[in-house]
């Protein structure tokens, strides 16, 4: 019998509760005597508060309290820097400015919180918001990231000389000499604009203070409950053991629910203590558009040096990254961009310089992809342009430059987002490309199908391109695995879960070691009362970092089981098998003991636990990689476009992903499908439209278009498995992969479809209207 569970298409343990409305989300927490908070937010993006009067709101029937920054006093100070100190790169500049719970004097983006109303119901709290009287002094607004860095720009932070939040240069080889010896130099400028993660569940926090035991319990829609627990304890002067943070079922994370220390996250627990009442705050969708972090604003000026036969000699990329009004999350996103601007190619010379700009916009932190799509957009657009200029097929020019299988580990000599060396651990890039070309029928399409379409007057294009994803970064995660008296396995880890199937994929890892059913492994994630060490769910790291901690803990428990069973069954450990919740002596089925009985023997009520041993069949293990594994994939797309309306129809979408060992292909495919859907949104539907006053013009789902079921094509997913040598399981991350190459692929496909327009796309996101404008301009140019 095949005992392997890793790699099996197992259906999810968590589904039945989710499918029947029994799974608890933050807004489902309902406590006796609970009060409800509503936030009074700034209408202006940049303004001074001249005066604020909350007396009428306070007097309103049903209002319990209203707080402004002044009322909060000395407790109103900024959140902690989350990724600090800045990276150890020579001459790095990093100006750390963080958000506060309530703004006292100067507003730095629309939607910042100025006051909070707490009332008996949410309805009353919102009524009272209308009773707050405020006078603003509007200030000139910093809305554009390039203008933000011009000498005469208004300042987002008055104590700084400019809006420069950070400056960092990284180099590999010598770009200038590469340039001097190049046959062809290509220069371009690319602009990438903001979108929003739009998790279906908005953010929310419920805090409960037990004054008698001085214990705080917080339910938070966070991807990282342990750092929130630690930060809250420090902030509120409580022992960490007296603060419990629970991230229950979370309705999608995608980055912005990371350990931000959002203003509300600092405010609501403080209010619960202050008022000695449970307090709930649930974000509404409009607030989510203004107050939940966003991503993707960058402008790149890039130059590449090539030989005549298409070999890349070097790349030089200068870019500006928009961090919004504050930069609590450090340089993660622009560092990620830097790590991905070389894509999966062997590039000997590289210079990358970025400047991060403060603007009067919502804070920027990682969102699914997290700077990576930008890097891939830049390199892959440049490869397309180079292919055209050099007259080389776009697949062929990529093939000539992909890192070869024998070049791994491939060291870049720069640092990544985790300040670890950027090293690609393993891969078989060309094989992934070949698999995709075969699956999509590239040759046949180019030679037979496309000419036929074109003869019919139809504009059908194909796109194919590779991407890398750095994943699974440190510092560490942990897991505790316990065989309970029932024979079931209890597992706890600190990472939060937002739909990734952790209750199943982690269970597979543990069940395989312990010879039990996947359904007999009960996982607890994201509750500091169950496991209080860890960082969180981000950077496509769950399956790598928490997964390998699970594996290590389960392996330790397996050893304990074998040791004890060997004694009980009087048989050598090598002859024992773990299967069906039993330990059996191989070939002697009647000589066996259940895990349940064994767990009881390991935790006896009489007798003695031998010196040097521990009671129970339990182990805790941690996994912390020196650097993360790098996954690779190739996406291909065939799409038809109507040049009159610029409406598209995607006819084929093929993904080949190599994320090392696959834990569960069903879950993996789901992750890729969702990633591609977000990527298509980023490419052609979703753009946050800010005006020159940094006012968001499309802050609703009516005006901000998410991809729907009728826009999504069927996605064909293929797999290659190049195990990572960095960890026992051989896993690489995949959570963000689907989203990363899509805008670049979309641009390539559209250029190919609109072949007679001589189109060169240098911006993303597009939409039908914008594409029409660009196409018309280029055609008449």
């Amino acid at each position, binding site marked *: 019998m095949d005992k392997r569970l890793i790699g099996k298409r197992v*259906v*999810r343990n*968590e*589904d*039945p*509760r*989710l*499918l*029947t*409305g*029994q*799974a*608890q*989300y933050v*807004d*489902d927490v*309902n406590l006796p005597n609970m009060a409800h908070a509503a936030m009074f937010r700034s209408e202006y993006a940049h303004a001074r508060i001249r005066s604020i009067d909350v007396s009428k709101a306070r007097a*309103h*029937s049903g209002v319990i309290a209203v707080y402004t920054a002044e009322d909060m006093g000395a407790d109103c100070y900024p959140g902690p820097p989350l990724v600090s100190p800045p990276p150890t790169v020579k001459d790095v500049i990093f100006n750390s400015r963080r958000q506060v719970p309530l703004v006292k004097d100067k507003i730095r983006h629309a939607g910042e919180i100025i006051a909070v109303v707490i009332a008996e119901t*949410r*309805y*009353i709290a919102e*009524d009272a918001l*209308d009773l707050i009287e405020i006078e603003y002094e509007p200030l000139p607004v910093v809305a554009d990231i390039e203008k933000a860095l011009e000498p005469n720009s208004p300042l987002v932070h008055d104590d700084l000389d400019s809006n420069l939040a950070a400056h960092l240069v990284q180099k590999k080889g010598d770009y200038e000499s590469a340039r001097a010896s190049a046959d062809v130099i290509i220069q371009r400028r690319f602009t990438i604009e903001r979108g929003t993660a*739009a*998790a*279906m*569940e*908005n953010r929310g926090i419920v805090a409960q203070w037990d004054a008698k035991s001085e214990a705080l319990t917080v339910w938070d829609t966070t991807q990282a409950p342990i750092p929130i627990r630690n930060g809250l304890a420090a902030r509120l002067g409580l022992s960490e053991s007296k603060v419990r943070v629970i991230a229950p*079922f979370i*309705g*999608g*994370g995608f980055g912005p629910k990371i350990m931000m220390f959002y203003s509300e996250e600092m405010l609501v627990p403080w209010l619960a203590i202050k008022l000695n009442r449970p307090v709930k705050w649930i974000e*509404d*969708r409009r607030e989510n558009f203004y107050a939940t972090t966003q991503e993707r604003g960058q402008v790149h000026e890039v130059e590449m040096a090539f030989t005549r036969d298409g070999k890349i000699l070097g790349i030089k990329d200068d870019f500006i990254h928009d961090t919004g009004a504050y930069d609590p999350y450090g340089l993660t996103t622009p560092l990620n961009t830097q790590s991905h601007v070389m894509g999966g190619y062997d590039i000997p010379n590289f210079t990358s310089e970025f400047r991060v700009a403060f603007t009067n916009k919502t804070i920027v932190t990682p969102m699914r992809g997290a700077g990576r799509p930008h890097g891939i957009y830049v390199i892959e657009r440049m490869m397309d342009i180079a292919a055209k200029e050099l007259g080389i097929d776009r697949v062929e020019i990529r093939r000539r430059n992909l890192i070869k299988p024998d070049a791994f580990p491939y060291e870049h000599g720069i640092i990544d987002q985790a300040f670890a060396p950027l090293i690609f651990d393993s891969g078989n890039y060309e094989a992934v490309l070949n698999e995709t070309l075969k699956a999509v029928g590239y040759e046949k399409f180019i030679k037979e199908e496309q000419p036929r379409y074109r003869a019919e007057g139809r504009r059908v294009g194909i796109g194919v391109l590779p991407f890398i994803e750095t994943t699974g970064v440190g510092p560490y995660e942990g897991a505790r695995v316990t065989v309970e008296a029932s024979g079931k396995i209890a597992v706890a880890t600190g990472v939060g879960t*937002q*739909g*990734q*199937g952790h209750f199943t994929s982690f269970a597979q890892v543990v069940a395989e070691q312990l010879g039990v059913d996947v359904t007999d492994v009960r996982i607890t994630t994201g509750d500091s009362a169950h496991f209080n060490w860890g960082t969180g769910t981000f950077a496509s790291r769950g399956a790598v970092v928490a997964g390998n901690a699970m594996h290590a803990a389960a392996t330790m428990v397996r050893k304990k089981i074998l040791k004890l069973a060997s004694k009980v069954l009087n048989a050598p450990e090598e002859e024992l098998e773990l299967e069906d919740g039993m330990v059996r002596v191989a070939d002697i089925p009647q000589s066996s003991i259940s895990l349940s009985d064994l767990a009881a023997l390991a935790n006896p009520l009489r007798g003695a636990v031998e010196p040097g041993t521990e009671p129970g069949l339990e182990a805790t293990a941690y996994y912390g990689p020196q650097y993360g594994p790098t996954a690779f994939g190739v996406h291909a797309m065939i799409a038809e476009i109507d040049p009159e309306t610029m409406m598209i129809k995607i006819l084929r979408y093929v993904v080949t992903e190599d994320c090392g060992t696959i834990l569960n292909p*069903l*879950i993996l*495919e*789901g992750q890729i*499908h*969702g*990633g*591609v*859907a*977000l990527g298509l949104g980023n490419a052609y539907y979703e753009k946050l439209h800010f005006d020159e006053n940094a006012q968001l013009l499309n802050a*609703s*789902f*009516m005006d901000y278009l*998410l*991809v*729907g*079921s*009728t826009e*999504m094509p*069927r*996605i064909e997913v293929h797999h290659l498995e190049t195990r990572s040598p960095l960890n026992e399981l051989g896993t690489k991350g995949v959570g963000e992969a689907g989203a990363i190459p899509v805008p670049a692929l979309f641009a390539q496909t559209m250029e190919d479809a609109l072949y007679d327009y001589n189109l060169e796309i240098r911006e993303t996101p597009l939409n039908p209207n914008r594409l029409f404008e660009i196409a018309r301009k280029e055609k008449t140019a």
Partner: protein
Amino acid sequence: MEATTQKIELSVTVNGTRYERAIEPRMLLSDFLRHEIELTGTHVGCEHGVCGACSVLMDGEPVRSCLMFAVQTQGREIVTVEGLGTVDALSPVQQAFHEAHGLQCGFCTPGILTTVTAFLETNPNPSEEEVREAISGNLCRCTGYQHIVDAVLLAAKKKQAS
């Protein structure tokens, strides 16, 4: 401003149980379900009728519970996700979503399940295109819809077989 405090007596049947409550006329149906009678399976994603997460069945028809006042359900029959099946006895649609991995974070799922349950009553043997059209009023950020579509097609097959 005076809060609208005058309450109205509401009598409504939810998942086969009759509830009688005195509520403010401005109370949304979604808030009534979630907070008054504590059926928190119905989720609220946008509060402006676009995302579809809050969809419930009223007299068998899908409605957005965030776009209705609870008092508008006077004397009506409401079915929420809790009324479709239980953990131990999933409905055919729920079972199909389980088998086809038609959900990830699960937040949009209740609205999709109610919508699909009603859809398969009117169209028991839909094409993929019809399924995509039927769920086009429900947003999902996790799945890219493919496994949801697979789940609906599987549910149709299961229902036909039973």
